[in-house]
């Protein structure tokens, strides 16, 4: 059984192993032991209620209960930009028009912004390639929504997720080549590494502060504004199927899209319900449910089959044990996918939404 739980100090070697499997662009998981150690300490302090608001963050790991192996990781930040500034480019429009000359031009323009200051952030999603099956990716991503639903007061009204932007097979980012490189004497991989080590605000200080007319960027740079890396497309589809949207904000280094939503509007948050548990043998043919035990330090989440008897949720004993609950305890549940559409249909819808967003 695959179980989500809060990270522990002992997970460091496994996480370091995972980090070494990520490529350029997963900036919040650099294979740097000191950095990972500091991150773990910070989230443990958060769970111990010892972290200042600007420092609060959470890291969940996906554990294979048979092998006790950590095979995935996902993160949440309570509020970004409260100690270092949080930068994005907002892709906006300036109209240059003269009635006298009968001229009208729309100029797409990038504005450096700190608009997401104080927002919560979904971050650091990585799943071992060997485990990319059985909806593990869905669990790893969406478990965070159940955590947010259970502890709303610990998060902002809005949440964002920065998606890795497009880069080519050599790890070159057309956005960096067309823009960032002009303002720096370092390459994208190095900028990316520094960003992962928490130097992003530092680097952003060096970025152009004035709005940038998109027309002055090379065609290949313009083409990838708001485009995700092909490997990140599935992660984007998952978040979009839950109601997060691209609203014109892109990353300052690789122009990957920032998805955003009001926490209360996210499907898994909005539709999740807390039920008392009854042990039994649920029908195995129903929809798959995302389940969590609503505990803070002892948080557990997993995927399972359920039945309902009035308000009560019928769980098999093994699932209940994995959630570390007994009869009479309460469990938060939501269908893994929006009920009106089958999983494959919702993925299609997400793909369509993605296409619409990029045209």
């Amino acid at each position, binding site marked *: 059984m695959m179980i989500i739980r809060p990270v522990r100090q002992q997970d460091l070697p496994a996480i370091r192993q995972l980090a070494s499997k990520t490529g350029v662009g997963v900036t919040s998981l650099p294979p740097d032991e000191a950095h990972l150690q500091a991150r773990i300490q910070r989230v443990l302090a958060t769970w111990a209620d010892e972290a200042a608001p600007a420092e609060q963050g959470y890291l969940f790991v996906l554990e294979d209960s048979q092998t006790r192996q950590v095979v995935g990781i996902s993160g949440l930040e309570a509020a970004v930009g409260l100690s270092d500034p949080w930068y994005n480019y907002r892709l906006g429009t*300036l109209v*240059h*028009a*003269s009635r*006298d*000359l009968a*001229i009208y*031009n729309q*100029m797409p*323009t990038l504005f450096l912004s700190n608009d997401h200051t104080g927002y919560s952030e979904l971050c650091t999603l990585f799943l071992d390639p060997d485990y990319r099956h059985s909806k593990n990716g869905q669990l790893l991503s969406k478990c965070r929504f159940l955590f947010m639903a259970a502890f709303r007061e610990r998060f902002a009204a809005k949440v964002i997720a920065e998606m890795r932007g497009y880069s080519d097979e050599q790890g070159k980012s057309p956005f960096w080549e067309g*823009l960032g490189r*002009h*303002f*720096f*004497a*370092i390459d994208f991989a190095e900028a990316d590494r*520094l960003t992962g080590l928490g*130097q992003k605000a*530092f*680097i952003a*200080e*060096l970025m*152009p502060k*004035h*709005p*940038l*007319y998109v*027309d*002055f*960027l090379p065609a290949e740079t313009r083409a990838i504004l708001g485009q995700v890396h092909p490997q990140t497309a599935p992660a984007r589809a998952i978040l979009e199927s839950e109601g997060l949207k691209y609203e014109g904000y892109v990353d300052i280094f690789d122009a990957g899209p920032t998805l955003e939503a009001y926490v209360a509007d996210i499907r898994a948050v909005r539709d999740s319900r807390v039920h008392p548990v009854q042990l039994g043998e649920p029908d195995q043919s129903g929809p798959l449910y995302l389940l969590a035990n609503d505990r803070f330090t002892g948080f557990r989440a997993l995927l399972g089959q359920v039945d309902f008897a009035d308000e009560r949720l019928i769980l098999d004993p093994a699932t209940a044990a994995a959630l570390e609950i007994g009869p009479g305890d309460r469990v938060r549940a939501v269908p893994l996918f929006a009920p009106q559409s089958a999983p494959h249909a919702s993925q299609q819808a997400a793909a369509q939404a993605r296409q619409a967003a990029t045209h």
Partner: protein
Amino acid sequence: MKVLRPAVMADLPQIERMAQQSGPMVCTLPVSRAHLQAKISRSQAALAAEVLLPGEESYFFVLEDLASGRLQGTCAILAQAGFGEPFHAYRNEVVIHASRALGVHQRLHSLCLSHELSDHSQLCSFYLEPELRQGHWPRLLTQGRLLFIAQHPERFAPDLVAVLPGRVDEAGRSPFWEQVGRRFFGIDYHQAEFYHGTQDRRFIAELMPHHPLYVSLLAEEAQAALGQVHPDARLQFDLLEADGFEADDFVEIFDAGPVVQARRTTLHSWQTSQLARVADISPSRQSNAPTCLLVNQALAEFRALLTPLSAAPGQALSLAPEVAEALRLRPGDPVRWLALESQ
């Protein structure tokens, strides 16, 4: 003999001819009869008015060959480059983005749309027939105007500006316009220049980028054109630069040609020109003397010409009769002269 004098309405047909000849590069000399007519009227009104401070006035001069009556050049001064509506230029700005920790030190060059030259007096509408572009004739127009300013300082601003046409390719296209202006205007360079010369400038405020442009993001050919003067205007540029104008801070908004500026009191012609009185008028024996620029003190009857002149600071001048007549001078009248050889 050729004199520089204020334009009068009778000059209109010849001025139209020169506007045709000058082409679209001299946008302050557009091929538009109504516009040129108004330009002459405004100049006449300015010369007739009592002026205590620079404002809306403009002064329009022509170079006349006295023997043939043919007009061979034009030039003008606007008392304020941006009276009533702002004068636009791109200011060169350099920002240092540095981080010791990251080992980064970058000079970022940007172009910022600026209005700060609006209250400068502007030299403009420079045109000279091609055969006169040798020798001292260009100076008669350029330094002649500067001496007019020196003779009537209350009518002009302490700071002067001049806009010179920028680099274009063989087809007459401005690489800077193609890469920058066209993105905002969507029209041809010459069309924009025509509007610039004839329309009010509101359209510039409406269409030009309000945010600074990072030079490193511009196409290479646009970067290469920054501050580069059109070959046809090289002479004018060199004259102004030699007199003390500086080209470092601003470029023109359409073609990125140089926008030169100077504090008038620092100019060579301001500092070295001399005031004198006419002592006597007698037939010339001065043909070996160095060429000087000589101007009278008048407004509507302002005249400037080039003549060999034996002159020394503090001394009264002896003028040949034809020179005195051309300048409308009598003994005792004040004049200002500038030796051209020494420059």
